[in-house]
């Protein structure tokens, strides 16, 4: 601080100001994130340490508190695996770093919404994705996992019929050689007798997991590599970009098949392998945007105010490339969803997984007389992917402050 400070400016008592604690200055979103993530982390660690005892602990806890019943309705007996923890973590991230800032800054939100709603298909898409999101989060809590029941195989959807020759037993009314669908299975059942609707609800969760976790991984690596490489330049840039080249040239599918062959297919494996080799395009795209931002004078202005390299990248370069990042990631998600469905259809996925892809795959051989097994998830998958694409397109228009300020000039 300067030695002489005139009275006109001495209203702030710097000593008292400086002694205040640092945690007060944390943004609300960071606080909320810490509050929610730390218990999650603790739970995960406990899970790791006390393998086998955890179930008992929960049951005991439920008994002690007299909450066994409500606990179960809340889905707390559900057995979280590693992937579930990451999924919950990404949802926290999404809530506190996407939704909360929109709520905290209603003026910008109104502005974005004004821009966004010009695009009608995108609004419909947003509603659809919100629906998918909600179903994916809370659906499994209300709808049980569909259990196979061979006696109930190939039950038709409500108002539809199927030839009794193809089924073992008809749940609804059978007359004249055809079986009527019932409300018990509104969308029919699969060949193994699983309820299609319940299957799809659980499949929605899987879809959400794929969308959120891959986005997290791709965003983390892609944004870091892209912005750091653009801002640093020199050998850092060179190294990171050659790494990106390698990742882009990597035969991910073959690698995935090889790993699947050795360890068996699982959703976690699919997500990790496909996401860790998918950030190349995003990193390159983000770098190209960040390069032009890094040349801007306000970056110099920030450096001259003493900001660290991390701060410049995190607070100034990333937000200024955010529109490209969000758009790019939104358009990347459908690729993963499609890839999962395709691999499942080819029988290269985890057959025990309740994903839309597996549902489609299970209807493969009975398409002739039980098309509902493929049609229902097929349409849902189609609309979801279409919705992501429309959304990405509309976000590009709505979130681009540069285009806006240029138009004003």
């Amino acid at each position, binding site marked *: 601080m300067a030695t002489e400070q005139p009275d006109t400016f001495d209203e702030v008592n710097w000593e008292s100001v*400086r002694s205040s604690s640092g945690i007060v200055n944390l943004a609300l979103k960071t606080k909320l994130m810490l509050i929610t993530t730390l218990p999650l982390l603790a739970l995960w660690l406990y899970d790791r340490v006390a393998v086998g005892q955890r179930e008992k602990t929960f049951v005991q806890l439920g008994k002690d508190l007299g909450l066994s019943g409500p606990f179960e309705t809340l889905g707390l007996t559900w057995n979280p695996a590693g992937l579930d923890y990451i999924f919950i973590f990404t949802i926290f991230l999404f809530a506190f770093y996407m939704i909360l800032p929109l709520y905290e800054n209603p003026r910008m939100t109104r502005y974005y919404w004004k821009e966004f709603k010009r695009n009608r298909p995108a609004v419909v898409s947003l509603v659809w994705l919100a629906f998918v999101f909600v179903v994916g989060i809370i659906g499994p809590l209300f709808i049980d996992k569909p259990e196979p029941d061979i006696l109930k195989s190939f039950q038709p959807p409500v108002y539809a019929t199927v030839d009794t020759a193809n089924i073992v037993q008809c749940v609804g009314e059978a007359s004249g050689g055809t079986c009527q669908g019932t409300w018990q299975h509104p969308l029919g059942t699969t060949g193994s007798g699983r309820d299609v609707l319940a299957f799809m609800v659980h499949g929605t969760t899987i879809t959400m997991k794929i969308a959120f976790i891959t986005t997290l991984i791709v965003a983390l690596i892609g944004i870091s590599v892209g912005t750091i490489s653009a801002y640093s330049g020199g050998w850092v840039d060179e190294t990171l970009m050659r790494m990106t080249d390698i990742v882009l040239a990597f035969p991910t599918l073959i690698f995935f098949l090889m790993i699947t062959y050795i360890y068996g297919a699982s959703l976690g494996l699919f997500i990790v392998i496909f996401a860790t080799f998918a950030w190349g395009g995003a990193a390159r795209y983000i770098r190209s945007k960040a390069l032009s931002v890094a040349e801007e004078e306000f970056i110099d202005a920030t450096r001259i*105010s003493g900001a660290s390299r991390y701060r410049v990248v995190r607070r100034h370069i990333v937000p200024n490339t955010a529109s490209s990042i969000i758009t790019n990631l939104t358009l990347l998600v459908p690729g993963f969803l499609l890839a999962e469905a395709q691999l499942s259809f080819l029988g290269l996925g985890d057959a025990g997984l309740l994903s839309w892809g597996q549902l489609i795959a299970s209807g493969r051989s009975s398409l002739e007389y039980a098309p509902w097994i493929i049609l229902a998830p097929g349409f849902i998958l189609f609309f979801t992917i279409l919705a992501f694409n429309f959304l990405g397109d509309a976000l590009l228009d709505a979130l681009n402050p540069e285009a806006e300020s240029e138009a004003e000039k």
Partner: protein
Amino acid sequence: MSVNDNLLEVKNLTTEFRTDNGMLTAVDAVDFSIGEGETVCIVGESGSGKTVATESITGLVKEPPGKVSGTVELEGKDLQSMNKKELRQVRGDNIAHIFQNPQEAMNHCYSIGWQITEALQVHQDVPDDEARKRGIDLLERVGLANASARFDDYPHELSGGQKQRAMIAMALVGNPDLLIADEPTTALDVTVQAQILKLLNELQEDYGMSILFVTHDLGVVAEIADRVVVMYAGKVMERGDVFDIFEEPSHPYTQALMECIPDKGRETDGIPGTLPNPYNTPDGCRFAPRCDHANEDCTIGDQPEEIEIERNHEVSCVYYQSGYDSSVVRDSELESDSSSTEMGATDD
């Protein structure tokens, strides 16, 4: 003023850039100093290395391709030998910078209030509400009307002059000892320009800070400077008190610059010729190829030593060395070169 009183002491500052065409020397062995509470103007036409010189002081020049040598001492501490952390501390705490184009020097993603408080909170653990209060006070001080409402405005919602005021607030929030102003009025219209200069003068008195002011506009220099450093092609041509420079411009280049000040009823032709090729600077005086008085001695050896022609007034011209008649350049001003018709590199 003794050397020890100086806030900033720049010695032998040289900045080179490695380019595809070879080494480019943008600033060549420049010395200058700034005392406490003093305003020093660096003047010169575009491309003479003024901006690079200021950027070299604060370490904004990217290395590589840039290469800065020489010493820059702020309050006796050498900035060049500091590590990144110390340098970050100096930036913002001791030195602040305002830029030519406030449009580009602001982040459009954040409100001006956010950016002002950021500059403060980078260094000091100040709670948000205190930072906000101080930010609003500052905005009021720099003359932004309705500051508390404007605090949450985004840069695109402000006019050019308002933005420059906000930029100044951003620079001042850390209460710097030295403010580097790189052509802060060039992008503004004349009336706003005058207001900003007046504001800077007032703020300097309030805060007792020093200002390093970079400009090509001698009108602005007359307005604000205590001392002037005239730069050309990376070299210092002349330096001295603002009155000496205006009363008695002694280097032919300074005289030529004075000629370029637009005035009622007088046409200005600019200075004939262009800046020398920075990859291959001419021998002798840098200005010799465009100088009306150049003789063969002007084109050999190095840039002439700076000669102190009166107290605190130094000129780098052979005509002031012993054995030359300095009246050749002294008396020639203002009437000799009305004949030149060729339009040269006019100052923008």
